[in-house]
């Protein structure tokens, strides 16, 4: 009966081969200049270009304006940079900001209806508070436990011991997980505890019962030990701190006022109605068409098509601002949304540092050159 078996979630794809192919965003590296030979200037032959040359700088100084910030949600503008930067930031937030999640499960007793790896998988997907994740070690490069991944620097231990002895179905939830470390607990519990403290929304919080792992009937038992480790979303989605991260180009809307004035009020109204989202409206006083919410525009081209159909091409001109992005970040709760953005910038910086160090050591730009053509 006391046979221990360990099941890790079986489907960790390959570990990343530590930054072998770091993404290259030379134009975005702040402060330090990596200057590149201009296209055409560089002889295609044997000569190596000089490593550090201060000819042209692509350096820009992006600006951030925060619009909205809650624990789990954040909206901000990123300006004066380009899509590669914005996309890098987005991808890092989704896939490379570390969190803590259950990675190894040692099952002692499982007489539930779900099998061992099923439960292990479900445990892995429970988001855990990961505020310390940046400071934790990856267990593969932990020195104090030789990569065993079971020491205090790289792991957190959980215990679960539930047995059903009533005739009612018993829900085993994230609330039944006992953590060895107070700072790493299931996110829903942390939220609940916070709500209790402030007691303003305690009623709502009390209704929450935690994330269901499995349901037990009379006589069924689940006893296990779980190890949570640090990881990144690239390896497995359970480590991803982001629920959704999106950015959009800020639209630049120009109404041709002269042409617009040739329209009758009904035509204006019809044209406004043609947009599936509420971007334009009619000024009740002046009868002019005004842009009320440019960000509601979904680049659907409906208003442009409508204008053409009305025989007024060029009534409105809409362009995406190439250097201006509106980000929406939603967090799973593992870390705060604001922290997620900051961590992402840190991670991105580290990655770029790695590139720079590598380049400095090897003094070899051939790879970079290949990318840039």
């Amino acid at each position, binding site marked *: 009966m006391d*046979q221990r*078996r360990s*099941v890790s979630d*079986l*489907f960790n794809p390959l570990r990343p081969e530590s930054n072998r192919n770091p993404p290259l965003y030379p134009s975005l590296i702040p402060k330090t200049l990596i200057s590149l030979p201009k296209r055409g200037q560089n002889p295609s032959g044997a000569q190596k270009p000089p490593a550090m040359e201060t000819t042209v700088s692509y350096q820009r100084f992006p600006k951030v304006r925060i619009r909205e910030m809650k624990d789990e949600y954040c909206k901000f503008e990123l300006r004066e940079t380009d899509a590669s930067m914005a996309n890098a930031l987005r*991808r890092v937030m*989704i*896939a490379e900001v570390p969190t803590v999640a259950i990675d190894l499960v040692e*099952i002692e007793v*499982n007489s539930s*209806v779900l*099998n*061992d*790896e*099923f439960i292990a*998988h479900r445990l892995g*997907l429970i988001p855990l508070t990961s505020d310390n994740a940046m400071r934790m070690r990856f267990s593969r490069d932990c020195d104090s436990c030789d990569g065993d991944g079971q020491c205090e620097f790289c792991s957190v231990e959980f215990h679960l011991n539930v047995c059903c002895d009533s005739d009612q179905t018993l829900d085993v939830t994230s609330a039944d997980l006992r953590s060895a470390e107070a700072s790493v607990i299931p996110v829903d519990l942390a939220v609940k505890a916070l709500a209790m403290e402030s007691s303003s929304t305690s009623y709502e919080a009390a209704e929450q019962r935690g994330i269901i792992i499995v349901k037990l009937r009379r006589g069924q038992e689940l006893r296990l030990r779980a190890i949570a480790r640090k990881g990144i*979303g*690239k390896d*497995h*989605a*359970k480590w*991803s701190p982001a629920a959704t991260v999106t950015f959009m180009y800020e639209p630049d809307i120009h109404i041709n006022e002269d042409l617009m004035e040739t329209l009758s009020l009904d035509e204006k109204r019809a044209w406004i109605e043609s947009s599936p989202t509420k971007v334009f409206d009619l000024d009740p006083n002046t009868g002019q068409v005004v842009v009320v919410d440019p960000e509601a525009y979904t680049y659907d081209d409906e208003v442009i098509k409508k204008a053409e*159909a*009305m*025989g007024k091409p060029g009534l409105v001109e809409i362009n995406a601002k190439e250097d201006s992005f509106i980000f929406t970040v939603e967090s799973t709760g593992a870390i705060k949304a604001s922290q997620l953005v900051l961590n992402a910038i840190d991670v991105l910086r580290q990655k770029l540092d790695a590139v720079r160090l590598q380049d400095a050591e090897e003094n070899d730009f051939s790879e970079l050159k290949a990318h840039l053509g």
Partner: protein
Amino acid sequence: MVAQESDPVVDYKTLTVPVKSAVDKFDLLPAFLKVRGLVKEHIDSFNYFIDHGIHKIVEANKRLVCVHDPTLFLEYKRIYVGNPTVHVDLVEQKITPQMCRLSDRTYAAPIFVDVEFTKGNQPNKQIEQRQRMQIGQMPIMLRSSHCVLRGKDEAELAKLGECPLDPGGYFIAKGNEKVILIQEQLSKNRIIIDRDSKGRVSASVTSSTHETKSKTVFFMEKDKIYLQLNQFSKPVPIMIILKAMGIESDQEIVQMLGRDPRYGSLLLPSIQECYSEKIYTQKQALDYLDEKAGSTGAARARIRKEGEARKIIRDIFLANVPVSHGNFRPKCIYAAVMLRRMMDAILNSDTMDDKDYVGNKRLELSGQLMSLLFEDLFKTMNTHALEHVNSAYSKSNSAMLDFTSVLQRFSPITQGLERAISTGNWDLKRFKMHRKGVSQGLCRLSFIAALGHMTRISPQFEKTRKVSGPRALQPSQWGMLCPCDTPEGEACGLTKNLALMTHVTTDEEEGPIISVCQSLGVQDLASLSGEEIHSPTSFLVIFNGLILGKHKDPKRFANAMRKLRRKGKLGEFVSIFVNDQQRCVYVASDGGRVCRPLVIADEGVSRIKEHHMKELRDGVRCFNDFLRDGLIEYLDVNEENNAVISLYEHQDKDLNGEKNEVDRKSITHVEIEPFTILGVCAGLIPYPHHNQSPRNTYQCAMGKQAMGNIAYNQLFRADSLIYLLVYPQRPLLTTKSIELVGYDKLGAGQNATVAVMSYSGYDIEDAIVMNKSSLDRGFGRCITMKKYSVLKEKTDRIIRPQNEQNKQILDADGIAAPGEIIRNHDIYVNKQSPKNPRDSSALKDQVYVDSNAKYKGVEGETTVVDRVLLCSDTDDKLSIKCIIRHTRRPELSRINSREERKRSGMEKGGVGGMEEGGAKEQKGMEEE
């Protein structure tokens, strides 16, 4: 310029007219399925066999008498089938289907007979009686009348380890679930007018009675008509046959055919031929036929005794027409009707029969097939017993000789039934039947696969037939056979599936129906002269292929019969069909006809009213009440020809306010629900009428491959391989059929959000890019469970492991522990066998060699021992079954990687081949 077109003119008057709400008859469907179940035709036919058919077989062969001594006999008084039991250590034990599945047993019940018999070879014998003598075991169909699952509710079924959604209708032979497929057949005992392979017009009858089976063919060659019968060495002129049956006058023959002079002229060459053979009397004809009798040459024909021809004509020629007291007249009339229909066909080729017409087909179900098998084995048992008793009678120690001991010692029934069901080979020499693949292992790939398997109809023709006729969709299939569900490739159009509401009839007692016919004014043939039979004022009444007589007012007769049926005085599946062209009324009560329920409409007004439906919804009325009250009736394919069926309640004006072309008064029936023309598999397709038709056919084949749930007891089954989905879902968009079938309770598949984009790179057919995070979170994750069986011979031993390599997962009992991770080369049963199995004396450790069971898995895969089952098999050996579980997530298509392609030999054709192979199956995953 405003490029707006004006709206089409809408007549708001017609749109605002309140739609007359038709009675929603949909609730009838669940009621119907509740009463009948999804595979009721199988269960009904098996019940009929067990409760009635088996008695008839025994009744026909009830007496065994020793040839040497007529007082030494055995007579079967009664036969009955008990409850499913098994003998374990000489104790009778009740068994459940789940027990049989897990322990490789056959789910069977004992067959008992009550007998009367005499003993010994003394002249004065006492008649002894014996009750409940077992003569074998009968495999029992699940959910049939003798099954333990009969009438159990969900909780009781769960207790028995059974899935409440499982439809039953299959057998369990040696632990394997076996379905006896529905077999399609041309109908027996019916006249079929057709063109044969040489293009000659022919009339054929395949006769089948309990005693004989034969095929009688009339054909016309060079204007002369011949009979072809296997018992005659070559075709015989038809006139000679008629004369041999006692009609010596040519005038009478022509009269029997009918007055039309064209018939006479068509018959003239045949009459002339008869005269050129110098045959004028019955005697001459019989002598002539005696010569021809025997299929093998003239040498044997000479030895044949006189009267052979008479016997053939009596017993084999048109065997379905009985000859009582040497009265050949019914046979003559039957032959004359055949000739007449043949001539009709020659004069007007429209009257030719269509072999593909569903009304000319019969479906043979498990009950009939089991009945044939049982009859054969029962007769074998009896002949064996007779032979044994006959030969033992003369021997000295036969004082205690009796039939029962022989029957008990030799009974091929248990073995024979079990073997036929588990191999699917129906080899019945007695009935000249040699069919393979009659039963198949029930497909448990998914719940729908199992259901679909049960409604499948296996074709009568060979699959190699090139002709398109039998493959084409027949209009008469409407409502009976699914128009979509057929496989692709060689069996396309030949293998069919039943529609949702189809019922297949079983045989019905003929006597009462015949007397009803007679009391309704059918004139007996015996009282009619040849001339009168085809008089233009009357119709022939044909009952199950037999000419019953004639009736002066066929419409009134048919209506009266139908009224009786609706009143419940006649069986609900009796069909009455007036064929105006052939001037016949066909009454049928035979088994194997397909039919379906329809709502009766009086002059286009449905008999079902809202209050009936309310009663149904309130639970005070069930489907059978609708039948009994004459609101609904079953129509078979032939009777549908006399009906005008509207899809929905008749509207006098259509939506545009135009007058409906169909006259309301002509409508006789209303369809219950139009979608019931589809079968189980096609019923899963949402909006099938918006699809290109082959797409529906493809989906019917593919729906069965969907992974998901198999049954509620899926985790307690020991199938050799099952695939389950970790997170199966109910379809977001359901059809009515889905709810009826229970697919929403045992779903297969997951609802995916799919973005379709035509751009480049991934615009390859059948490729899909999947979100890796979704896969991480469990999308498409599946569990496979594979069974590994080990049989421990009596001399083998299973020993405790000694901390050796590859034996870490073993328990102290030497068998793998459930829950352990099992890797390649791990041993899961630590078994040893003696070097010399015969030497069973002092068995020491040295005489044993390892014969352990080693797991062969893929390196790097994590498989887990899910369960271990121990049971003793039928030979009392220990059988160990390890169920090994492996959870898998969707993988990049293997074919995509260059290495794999090389390995699988895809690159044979050089670069071109590679591109083709690589591109076709590409399935990519991308981050995010």
